[in-house]
């Protein structure tokens, strides 16, 4: 697994309090990992800080799964 994926996973595990094994490629933050809509906003904030990037609101809305997040951040950073 890439370095980006490891760092994203760490943030998701810490923020949502889920087991690492549940954070799979297609795991949806809201449907599978128990996030509410405000959690997803906070996750995006945490990604922005961890990777020093800016994620615009319209892009943030497309980040629904762990895989989406890794893909977006890999391309952006």
């Amino acid at each position, binding site marked *: 697994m890439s370095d980006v994926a490891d760092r994203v996973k760490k943030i998701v595990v810490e923020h949502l309090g889920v087991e690492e094994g549940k954070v799979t490629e297609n795991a949806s933050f809201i449907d599978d990992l128990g996030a509410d809509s*405000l959690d997803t*906003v*906070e996750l995006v*904030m945490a990604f922005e800080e961890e990777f020093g990037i800016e994620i615009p609101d319209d892009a943030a809305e497309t980040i629904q799964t762990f895989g989406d997040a890794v893909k977006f951040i890999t391309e952006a950073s």
Partner: protein
Amino acid sequence: MFDLTGKNALITGASGGIGGEIARALHAAGATVALSGTRVEPLQALADELGERAHVLPCNLSDPEAVEALPKQAAEAMGSVDILVNNAGITRDNLFMRMSDEEWQSVIDVNLTSTFKLCKGVLRGMMKARWGRIINISSVVGATGNPGQGNYAASKAGMIGMSKSLAYEVASRGITVNAVAPGFITTAMTDKLTEDQKAGILQQVPAGRMGEPAEIAAAVLYLASPEAGYVTGTTLHVNGGMAML
């Protein structure tokens, strides 16, 4: 009680009577304050009076770019914004049938839209800190209406609906959002009234007198305090009984 030591507060309209008194109250409780307003001179005079823990951040709230920049400037000056008091407001009174689009829009922009933007601008830091206090200064006329103030009353009622909606969203993060609705308070705004007008108003006030800015500041201090952590989405009416809501 009501110890704000270590908290950083941004107050808009701090050059006015009520805003200045709010700044004094929060500062006296130990908070660091950022004083915002359009007129630099009274802001600087207030900062000099308060001494340490006071920053001056001039901002014209009818300028959208200046509004966007203000939360960042406040966070840079103080390290964070833990308490936001949206107190700045303008009036452009006119009879409804004579009110121009410009009179309507300017009041909505300064009173309501800038409040929205400033709330949005401070939320990120408050969410991370899992603590925050937002206090929006509304008005009794937002609840009762007032002839000649269709624009102002709409902006002040809008602040209350907005505060409640935001209060729902961020309550689980330790952030409270409340409104304070002053009645008739002795300020430069009400000094313009004639004695006859004042007498007419006082007939509607059971307390039989106008309120003092310090009485609004005390309500804000309470809502800003750790002790008010379970109070959110409410409107605290401070109006001498003029409207019992």
